[in-house]
């Protein structure tokens, strides 16, 4: 695609000169603006700026598109995958399961692999948006190796739709250099301190399940409640807290690292990553409870590069690859083969494996919350308030 193809250089210059000669007019403005566009075309056509992929594509094609969550993979693994197969991985990051569902419902997402959370899979199946997995293409999947607590949700009516990636908890991360020595142990602390000395320094997820769920926990209600009265209480709290928030975003690591934010709702792995780099940042599970979850790899209906999708999933659940993933993302996995390869410190890490009494208080997300119109609307009202 050379620019000469649609307008000759001479012509172009002639036109340009016409603008110059004529008195400066509105069209002069357009001309100058448009010149930028033309310049971009020329730039793209310059030899040497374009390169072809480093190696010939194998039979799985040269690309695969992965829809996943922030800070969720070891970038090195994708480089290895490219070296092994010739396929590049494009990583698209999402902030909530609702966003993933909306994109798939609108059609033509272009994803090959996506990472749904346990409670959403039945909805994907009933909406006919997810592909039953051909296990013969996933030799690294060994059903018996997984803890059923964290792999069951991938199987709907006996069919495997999704294979486990890792599991985790939803707590909060707090920079203890600002707590003044007072212990933070509950969601009550989280919300109360936000309205007090953490004002302007707290982040919550842009995600109905956790933001509403953990507000419900303030009152001791179920994390999954869809009861209108209980949701009304949660909404009142959220609206009261909103002026004290730093931001509403599911990508909270940059702000926590830069010191702009002091406390945030947080998933296990982000807590681990932050804590490893900045020890003052601690990961806390609210003692009232909260969310326990498990994420899965799945293939959406109509994935454009299906073979590459299988190859990528198979690659990522390879125990060795998966172990590298764990070291990078800091989430526990349900795969006993992977755990066998992990160092003891990881397997005994209190962030990844919280004390039993804390775990016992947690709940898995319920499918009803994903499609419940009241919860969706509550979060939207909270954000637009």
């Amino acid at each position, binding site marked *: 695609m050379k620019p000469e193809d649609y307008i000759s250089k001479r012509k172009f210059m002639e036109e340009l000169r016409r603008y110059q000669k004529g008195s400066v007019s509105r069209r002069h403005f357009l001309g100058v603006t448009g010149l930028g566009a033309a310049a971009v075309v020329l730039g793209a056509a310059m030899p040497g700026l374009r390169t072809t992929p480093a190696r010939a594509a194998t039979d799985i094609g040269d690309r695969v598109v992965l829809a996943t969550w922030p800070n969720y993979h070891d970038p090195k693994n994708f480089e290895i995958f490219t070296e092994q197969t010739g396929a590049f991985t494009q990583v698209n990051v999402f902030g909530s399961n609702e966003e993933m569902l909306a994109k798939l*419902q609108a059609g033509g997402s272009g994803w090959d692999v996506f990472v749904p959370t346990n409670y959403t899979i039945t909805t994907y199946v009933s909406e006919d948006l997810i592909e039953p997995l051909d296990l013969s293409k996933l030799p690294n999947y060994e059903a018996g190796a997984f803890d059923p607590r964290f792999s069951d949700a991938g199987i709907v009516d006996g069919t495997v739709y999704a294979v486990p990636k890792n599991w985790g908890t939803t707590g909060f991360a707090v920079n203890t250099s600002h707590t003044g020595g007072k212990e933070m142990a509950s969601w009550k602390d989280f919300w109360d301190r936000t309205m007090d000395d953490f004002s302007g320094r707290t982040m919550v997820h842009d995600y109905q399940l956790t933001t509403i769920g953990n507000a419900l926990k303030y009152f001791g209600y179920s994390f999954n409640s869809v009861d209108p009265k209980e949701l009304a209480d949660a909404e009142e709290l959220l609206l009261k807290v909103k002026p004290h928030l730093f*931001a509403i975003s599911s990508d909270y690591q940059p702000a926590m690292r830069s010191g702009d934010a002091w406390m945030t709702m947080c998933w296990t792995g982000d807590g681990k990553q932050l804590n490893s780099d900045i020890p003052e940042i601690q990961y806390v599970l609210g003692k009232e409870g909260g969310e326990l979850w498990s994420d899965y790899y799945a293939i959406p209906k109509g994935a454009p590069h299906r073979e590459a999708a299988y190859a990528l999933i198979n690659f990522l659940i390879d125990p060795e690859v998966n172990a590298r993933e764990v070291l990078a993302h800091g989430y526990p996995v349900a795969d006993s083969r992977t755990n066998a390869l992990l160092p003891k410190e990881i397997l005994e890490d209190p962030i990844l494996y919280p004390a039993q009494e804390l775990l016992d208080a947690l709940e898995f997300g319920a499918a009803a919350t994903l499609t419940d119109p009241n919860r969706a609307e509550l979060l939207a009202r909270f954000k*637009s308030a």
Partner: protein
Amino acid sequence: MTKRERNWLLLLPGGAWFLIMLVLPLTVVFIFSFGERGDAGGYVPAFTLEQYANLPARLTAFENTMILAPIGTLISMLIAYPLAYQLAVNTSRKWKTVLLVLVIVPFWTSILIRSYAWIYILGGQGIPNLLEMLGIEGVRLIYTPFAVLIGIIYGYLPLMVFPIYVSLDRLDKRLLEASSDLGAKPFATFMQVTLPLSVPGIATGCMLVFILLMGEFLIPALLGGGKVFFVGNALVDLFLQSRNWAYGSAVAVTLIVIMLVTVTVYMRLISRLNTQRDDVSIM
């Protein structure tokens, strides 16, 4: 073939395109705005005014938009005018083009990337950090309405500079000279000659920027931290998060109506204000 037939033929492809890609979509949105949300989201046909009745739930988004868009437009204009004046009146021909081009060059970098740069500048390691060194502590800029305001002014300043520049550049310099020869003070000359003649440029620039700001979504999303919500953000949320197409359509229809009314009234006012009506076209 008569001339009339020929004209019809010329209008056919463009007309068909507008029909399918503009009239049809807007009609669908209008119809959907009377529908209901499906169980798993999306749209279910119905006839109800419930979505419109529910509009007050997005009142803050409408308020934010209708407050910040005019303020942003006004401040852009106040910043752009002296610059445009300087370029059009006080700059030699040689430098004019270069300086003018320099105003648009930032425009060629995606607004996404430029806004991201502002996250850094306004974030804790940027300006607040500098202020701290000067002894001013605890200033928070990022993820505030102020950050969004900076972002929108920055993003659309060139669109304001250009039309004003064009209207000032057309101004006959002899008028200014005549005015000062007649003993008018520079300020009086400006108020009585320059300013009135540049009204068309101001009007065009303000309208361009205002239209874009009313539909803005990116800058509040990036610099507002999910807290400073414009109608655009409410729309994105309704379609891409809560999947309530019916309610989203009602919000969209409302936004369209508000814009149609504001812009039409604005254009009427301007054209009454100023006889050079031609210059107040949208482009």
